[in-house]
C-alpha cells in the first residue's frame, strides 16, 4: 500500500498539468488528434487514482479539452466526484484555472469569463477559499486587461476579510494599483484601501502622500470622495495632515460643482478640526451653514434644484451634530434655523434637528425650547415620532442632573402634560422622572403631591383606553408619591378613595401592589389627623372604608398584591378593634412607615465599610454534597428528569435494583399522560389515553387497522391504503405495458412501412389520463363516431381550405364570421364549377376551426392535436359516406383506428341531410411542435339524390401554426419572475412598426390569436406568458411607444420562439 502511494506521488511529478497540456497541444499542431488521444489516456489513468488532487488536475485538463470540442462525457462521474469533494476549493480552482488559462491562451474574448468567476467569487468567499485563491487573485491583479485588474483588486478586500494574513504580501501590489493608468482600477484600489483604513486607519498613514497626489490629480468625483473620506479618518491621527489639506480642500470647495464632493470636503474639515484646534473652523462651519441657508435662499443662489435641497438640509444637520460635540457654541447661534427644521414635513430632518437640540439648551432657553417641542408633540402624527419627541424632551431636561432646569414646578407640569399623550410606550420613563424629581427635590414635594393626587383622581382617563396602556405606568409613580409624602396632601381622604376604587383592579399587578401599600401609608396619615379631632367616628369610618375595599385586592391573582392586601387588611381589622375600645393607635400605625427614603447614589454601596470579621467568600454552612443537591433538585420540580440522573450517576447500582427502578419508572410513565413512549407497544397504551386503562389493550394488536383509534394508527392505515394502491398501479401499468406490447406487435405486422412514432403509445396515454381523470374525450370519441351514424345526408362539398394556402392562413386567424363569409363565396364558386349545377344546393361546407384546434392537456407527452371540423350541407341532396384523409408527414400523423393502414381514410361518423351541419374531430399526433405544419388532405363523399349518386372529392390543406400549439395558461407574476430568473430561456425580439391600435387591443389580439395571457401590465408595457403542449415556456415583454411595438420574447426552444414571433408579426402586418 505504502509503495503504491509513493509510486503515485512519483507518478504525479511527471503528470502533465493544464499548462503542459496546452503547450503540448500547440506543439503538436499536425497531429493534434493523436496527441490529445494520448492525453486522454493519461487522464483516464489519473482519474483512477485515489488522490483527489490528481483527480482535480485531471478534471482541470478535461475542462480545457471539452472547451476545444472533445467529448468528455465519459468522465462525468469523475467530474461529479471531484465537484462533490469536501474541498470546495477544487471546484472554484478548476473554474478559475480554466478561466485564467483560457484567458491567457485565447486572449480577449474570455475576459468576461474571468470577470464572471470573480464576481461569483465575491459572493461566497470563505476563509478556505480566500487562503487558497489569494495568490491566484494576486496574479490577476496585474492582468493585462484593466477589466480583470479592477475586479481582482476589489475582490482582494473580501479575501483580506476572510484571510487577513494575505494582506501583508498583497499590500505592495495594491499600493501599486493606486497609480494604475486605468481610472477604474485606480478607483477600485482606492475603494479597497478606504475600506481597510476604516477598520484600522493608523496603518495607512504612510499612504497619505500618495493619496494627496491622487487628490490633486484625479477628476473622478467618486475617487475624490473616497479619498477625502479617508483623510477624514486619518487627520485625527496626524495633526499635520489637517493643515496640509486646507489648501487642496479649499480649492475643491471652490471649484467643484458636485454637491456630493463639496459636502464631503466640508465634512472632512470638521473631522480634521477636532485635533487641530480652531484655526480654520469659522470659514468651514460657515460653508456648512451655507447648506442650510441654501434652502432658505434658493432664489439667490439658484444652485440647487428643488428636490435636492432637502437632502442638503439633512446632511447639513448631520454635519452640524458633529460640530456640536466640539463646538456647541457655534451651533447654538443657529438655534432659530434648527427650530425651524423641527417644523419640517420630513421626519428624517426633524429627527436630525431633535438630535441637535440636545446640545443646544441652556438655562435661558430651555423652557422656550421645550415649549416648542410640546407644541410639536401635540401636532405630531405617528407614534414613533411622538415617542421620539417625548424621550428627547426628557433627555434634554434631565441631562447632567437637571443642570438646566431652574423651575421644577414647571418640569413637573411638563411631565404631567406628557401623560396626556395617546399611545406612548414611554410611561415608565415619565414615571421614573416623577419619582426622581419628587425624591430629590424636597421643595417640590408639595406641588408634586398635589399634581399626583389629581392624576390619581383622573386615573380612569389613563386606564380606560387600551391604547393608553403604556401610560398607566405613571400611576405607579403617582401612587407612591402620594403615599410616601402624604403629609403634604390637601385632601387625603379623597385620594385614599381614589386609590381604593374597584377600577384599580384592572391595572397591572405591580401598580396595584404599590396602590395597596400606599393606601396603608395614607391610612396611617389619616388616622393621625383624625385622632386629633374630638370626633372619633371619622377615624372609624376610614377604617371601615379600608375593610370594605381591601378584600378586592386580597382576591387578586397577583401574588404581591394579594400578600400585601391580606396583611394590611388584618392590620386594619385589628386597628378597628382597638378603635372600638377607644385606644389611640395612630402613633403606632404611623411608626410602621416612619423614616424617610433617601435617594442613594449608584456607587454608594462602596462607601460602606465591610464589618470586621466578615468574609463574604467563606461558606456559612457546610456546602451541600454534590450528589445530594443534584438528586434532590430535579426530583422536586421535574419528576420526569429524575430517571436520567439516577442512571447517569449511580452506575454502581446492582442489577436487581436497576430492574426494580425500571419497573417503577415504567409504572410511572404509564400513568403519565404526557410521557411519550418509545416502543410501539407502549405507544398504543399512550393512544388509549389515561382514562381507559381498564380496556384490554391486547385488542389493538389486531392487524385490522381500521378499528384502531388515534392518529398514528390512522396514519398506518393511510400508508397501507397507499401501498395497496401503489401495488394496483404497478399491476395496472404492467398490464398496460403488456397491452401496449401486444398492440405494437399487432400493428407491426400490419404496417409494412412500420412508422414508429407516438401513434402506438396513445392507448397508454388514454389509460393514464383516465386514471388521472383528465379530459381525454376525443380519443374516446373516435370509436364512438361509428355508432352515431344515424341520420345523414350528403352533397358535393366545398371547402374553404381548398384555396391557396396563402389565403388560408390569415383566414384562420381572422374571426369566425369572416371566415364563414369567405368560404361562402368560395363554396359557391366551386360548386358551380364542379357540378355544373346552377344552384347552390350541392355545396358542402367544411370549416376547419384553426382557432379552435383543440389540444389535449397531455403535457407529459404533448403529442396530440385535435382538429374540429364542421361539415355543413348546403345543397338539397343527401351526403353520405364521407371519408376524411390526410397525407401524413414524418412529423405529424392522423390517428387512425387500430388495424387500418397509414393511408386509409377515416370515415366521418355521420351523414348529412340537406342544410344540416355537424362536427367531427380528428386527432393528429405530432412529434415536434417547433415548426408550423401544412398537411394536404382530401375529403371524399357521395351525393345522393332520388335517382343517382355521385362521387365527389374535395382537396384541402390543414395548417398547423406554432401558435396553435400554445395553450393559454395563466401565470402569476412571482412564478413568472422565477421562471425568468432560472436563466434557461433564450431571448429573441421583434419590432413592429406602424401598429396603430390601442395597447389593450394589441394585447387582446395576441391573447386571442396566439393563446397568451397577460401576466402583468404597467402603462404601455406588459409581460405575457404561454405554454406549449409540450411544456415549453414562452414569455413575452410587449412595449409600445407611438406606433412602434417592440416585443422581447424568451423561450427554452428558440425555433418555436422564432416561429411564434413570425406568426405574431404576421398577425399585425395585416392591420
Amino acid at each position, binding site marked *: 500500500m505504502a509503495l503504491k502511494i509513493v509510486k503515485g506521488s512519483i507518478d504525479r511529478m511527471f503528470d502533465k498539468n493544464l499548462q503542459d497540456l496546452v503547450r503540448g497541444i500547440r506543439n503538436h499542431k499536425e497531429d493534434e488528434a493523436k496527441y490529445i488521444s494520448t492525453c486522454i489516456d493519461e487522464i483516464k489513468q489519473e482519474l483512477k487514482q485515489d488522490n483527489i488532487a490528481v483527480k482535480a488536475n485531471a478534471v482541470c485538463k478535461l475542462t480545457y479539452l471539452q472547451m476545444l470540442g472533445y467529448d468528455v462525457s465519459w468522465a462525468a462521474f469523475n467530474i461529479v466526484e471531484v465537484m462533490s469533494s469536501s474541498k470546495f476549493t477544487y471546484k472554484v480552482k478548476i473554474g478559475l484555472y480554466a478561466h485564467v488559462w483560457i484567458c491567457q491562451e485565447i486572449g480577449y*474574448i474570455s475576459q*468576461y469569463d474571468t470577470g464572471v468567476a*470573480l464576481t461569483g467569487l*465575491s*459572493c461566497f468567499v470563505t476563509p478556505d477559499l480566500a487562503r487558497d485563491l489569494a495568490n491566484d487573485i494576486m496574479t490577476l491583479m496585474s492582468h493585462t486587461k484593466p*477589466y480583470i485588474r*479592477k*475586479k481582482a483588486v*476589489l*475582490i482582494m*478586500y*473580501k479575501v483580506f476579510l476572510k484571510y487577513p494574513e494575505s494582506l501583508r504580501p498583497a499590500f505592495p501590489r495594491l499600493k501599486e494599483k493606486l497609480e494604475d493608468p486605468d*481610472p*477604474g482600477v485606480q*478607483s*477600485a484600489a482606492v*475603494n*479597497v484601501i*478606504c*475600506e481597510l483604513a*476604516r477598520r484600522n486607519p493608523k496603518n495607512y498613514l504612510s499612504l497619505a502622500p500618495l493619496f494627496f497626489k491622487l487628490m490633486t490629480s484625479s477628476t*473622478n*468625483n*467618486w475617487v475624490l470622495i473616497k479619498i477625502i*473620506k479617508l483623510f477624514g479618518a486619518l487627520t485625527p491621527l496626524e495633526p499635520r495632515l489637517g493643515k496640509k489639506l486646507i489648501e487642496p480642500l479649499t480649492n475643491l470647495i471652490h471649484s467643484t460643482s*458636485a454637491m*456630493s464632493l463639496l*459636502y*464631503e470636503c466640508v465634512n472632512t474639515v470638521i473631522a480634521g478640526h477636532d485635533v487641530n484646534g480652531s484655526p480654520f473652523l469659522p470659514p468651514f462651519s460657515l460653508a456648512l451653514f451655507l447648506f442650510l441657508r441654501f434652502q432658505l435662499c434658493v432664489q439667490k443662489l439658484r444652485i440647487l434644484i*428643488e428636490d435636492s435641497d*432637502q*437632502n442638503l438640509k*439633512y*446632511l447639513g444637520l448631520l454635519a452640524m451634530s458633529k460640530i456640536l460635540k466640539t463646538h456647541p457654541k457655534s451651533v447654538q447661534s443657529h438655534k432659530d434655523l434648527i427650530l425651524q427644521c423641527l417644523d419640517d*414635513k*420630513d*421626519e*428624517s*430632518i426633524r*429627527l436630525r434637528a431633535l438630535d441637535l437640540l440636545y446640545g443646544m439648551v441652556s438655562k435661558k432657553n430651555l423652557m422656550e425650547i421645550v415649549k416648542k417641542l410640546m407644541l410639536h408633540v401635540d401636532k405630531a402624527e405617528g407614534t414613533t415620532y411622538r415617542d421620539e419627541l417625548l424621550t428627547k424632551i426628557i433627555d434634554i431636561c434631565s441631562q447632567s442632573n437637571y443642570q438646566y432646569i431652574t423651575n421644577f414646578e414647571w418640569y413637573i407640569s411638563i411631565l404631567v402634560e406628557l401623560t396626556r399623550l395617546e399611545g406612548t410606550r414611554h410611561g415608565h420613563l415619565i414615571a421614573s422622572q416623577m419619582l426622581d424629581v419628587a425624591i430629590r427635590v424636597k421643595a417640590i414635594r408639595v406641588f408634586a403631591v398635589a399634581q399626583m393626587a389629581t392624576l390619581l383622581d383622573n386615573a380612569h382617563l389613563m386606564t380606560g383606553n387600551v391604547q393608553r396602556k403604556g401610560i398607566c405606568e405613571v400611576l405607579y409613580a403617582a401612587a407612591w408619591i402620594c403615599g410616601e409624602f402624604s403629609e403634604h396632601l390637601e385632601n387625603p381622604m379623597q385620594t385614599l378613595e381614589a386609590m381604593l376604587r374597584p377600577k384599580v383592579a384592572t391595572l397591572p399587578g405591580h401598580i396595584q401592589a404599590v396602590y395597596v401599600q400606599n393606601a396603608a401609608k395614607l391610612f396611617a396619615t389619616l388616622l393621625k389627623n383624625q385622632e386629633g379631632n374630638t370626633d372619633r367616628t371619622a377615624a372609624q369610618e376610614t377604617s371601615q372604608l379600608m375593610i370594605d375595599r381591601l378584600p378586592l385586592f386580597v382576591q387578586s391573582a397577583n401574588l404581591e398584591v394579594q400578600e400585601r392586601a391580606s396583611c394590611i387588611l388584618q392590620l386594619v381589622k385589628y386597628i378597628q378593634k382597638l378603635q372600638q375600645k377607644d385606644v389611640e393607635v395612630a402613633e403606632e400605625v404611623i411608626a410602621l412607615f416612619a423614616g424617610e427614603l433617601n435617594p442613594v447614589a449608584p456607587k454608594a454601596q462602596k462607601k460602606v465599610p465591610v464589618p470586621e470579621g466578615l468574609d463574604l467568600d467563606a461558606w456559612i454552612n457546610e456546602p451541600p454534597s454534590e450528589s445530594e443537591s443534584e438528586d434532590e433538585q430535579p426530583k422536586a420540580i421535574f419528576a420526569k428528569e429524575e430517571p436520567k440522573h439516577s442512571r447517569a450517576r449511580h452506575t454502581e447500582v446492582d442489577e436487581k435494583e436497576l430492574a426494580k427502578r425500571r419497573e417503577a419508572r415504567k409504572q410511572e410513565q404509564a400513568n403519565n399522560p404526557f410521557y411519550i413512549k418509545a416502543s410501539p407497544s407502549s405507544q398504543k397504551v399512550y393512544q388509549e389515553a389515561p382514562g381507559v386503562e381498564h380496556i384490554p389493550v391486547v385488542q389493538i394488536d389486531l392487524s385490522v387497522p381500521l378499528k384502531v383509534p388515534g392518529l398514528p394508527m390512522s396514519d398506518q392505515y393511510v400508508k397501507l391504503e397507499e401501498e395497496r394502491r401503489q401495488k394496483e398501479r404497478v399491476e395496472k401499468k404492467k398490464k398496460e405495458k403488456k397491452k401496449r406490447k401486444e398492440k405494437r406487435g399487432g400493428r407491426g405486422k400490419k404496417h409494412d412501412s412500420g412508422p414508429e412514432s407516438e401513434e402506438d403509445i396513445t392507448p397508454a396515454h388514454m389509460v393514464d389520463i383516465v386514471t388521472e381523470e383528465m379530459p381525454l374525450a376525443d380519443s374516446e370519441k373516435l370509436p364512438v363516431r361509428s355508432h352515431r351514424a344515424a341520420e345523414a345526408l350528403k352533397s358535393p362539398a366545398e371547402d374553404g381550405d381548398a384555396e391557396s394556402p396563402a389565403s388560408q392562413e390569415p383566414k384562420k386567424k381572422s374571426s369566425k364570421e369572416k371566415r364563414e363569409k369567405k368560404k361562402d363565396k368560395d363554396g359557391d364558386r366551386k360548386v358551380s364549377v364542379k357540378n355544373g349545377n346552377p344552384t347552390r344546393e350541392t355545396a358542402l361546407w367544411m370549416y376547419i376551426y384553426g382557432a379552435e384546434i383543440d389540444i389535449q392537456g397531455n403535457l407529459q407527452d404533448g403529442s396530440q392535436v385535435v382538429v374540429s371540423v364542421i361539415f355543413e350541407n348546403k345543397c338539397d341532396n343527401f351526403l353520405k359516406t364521407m371519408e376524411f384523409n390526410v397525407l401524413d408527414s414524418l412529423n405529424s400523423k392522423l390517428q387512425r383506428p387500430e388495424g387500418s393502414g397509414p393511408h386509409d381514410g377515416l370515415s366521418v361518423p355521420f351523414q348529412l341531410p340537406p342544410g344540416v351541419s355537424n362536427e367531427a374531430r380528428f386527432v393528429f399526433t405530432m412529434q415536434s411542435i417547433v415548426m408550423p405544419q401544412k398537411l394536404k388532405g382530401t375529403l371524399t363523399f357521395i351525393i345522393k339524390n332520388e335517382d343517382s349518386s355521385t362521387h365527389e372529392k374535395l382537396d384541402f390543406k390543414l395548417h398547423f401554426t406554432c401558435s396553435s400549439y400554445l395553450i393559454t395558461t395563466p401565470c402569476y*407574476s412571482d412564478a413568472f*419572475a422565477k421562471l*425568468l*430568473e432560472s*436563466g434557461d430561456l*433564450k*431571448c429573441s425580439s421583434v419590432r413592429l412598426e406602424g401598429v396603430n391600435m390601442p395597447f389593450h387591443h394589441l394585447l387582446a389580439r395576441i391573447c386571442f390569436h396566439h393563446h397568451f395571457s397577460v401576466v*402583468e401590465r*404597467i*402603462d*404601455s*408595457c*406588459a*409581460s405575457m406568458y404561454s405554454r406549449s403542449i409540450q411544456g415549453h415556456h414562452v*414569455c413575452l*415583454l410587449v*412595449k409600445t*411607444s407611438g406606433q412602434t411595438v417592440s416585443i*422581447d420574447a*424568451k423561450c427554452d426552444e428558440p425555433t418555436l420562439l422564432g416561429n411564434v414571433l413570425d406568426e405574431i408579426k404576421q398577425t399585425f402586418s395585416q392591420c
Partner: protein
Amino acid sequence: MIKAILIFNNHGKPRLSKFYEHYSEDTEQQIIRETFHLVSKRDENVCNFLEGGMLIGGSDYRLIYRHYATLYFVFCVDSSESELGILDLIQVFVETLDKCFENVCELDLIFHVDKVHNILAEMVMGGMVLETNMNEIITQVDSQNKMEKSEQSP
C-alpha cells in the same frame, strides 16, 4: 460598503433584490417589506435619506433611495459611503438601464433579470462600487451581450 440593493414598485412588489451579506430568505423578505413600509409613507419632496431600518444594520446604516415613476430604488449603505455619491450612483444605474433597454419599464427588470444583474455586477461587486462611469459600464455590458449572442448563434 453597500449592504443591499432593493428595487420594488409602488405597491411593494419586489422587482430586484441584491444582498451583499447573507440573510435567510425570510429575513430578506422581511427586510424588503420593512423597507417598503418605511419608504412608501414618505412624501415626494422630502430628503432621500432614512434611518431606522431595524433589521438591516444598526445606527451606522442608512437607507438612500430614489423614487422613479413606479419604482423605488433603495440602497442600504454604511457610513463609509457618501450619501450624495450613492444618490448619483442610483441615477447612473437608472440611466444605464434606460440606455440598455430603450424606454425602460418596470417589467424589464423582471423580463431581463439576467441583464439587469449583469449591469449591476458591473457597477457594484461584493458590496463595493466597481465603476461609476456610465459609458464604461455600457461598453462592458454591450460587449458581453455581443459575446453571448455570438456563442448562441453557431
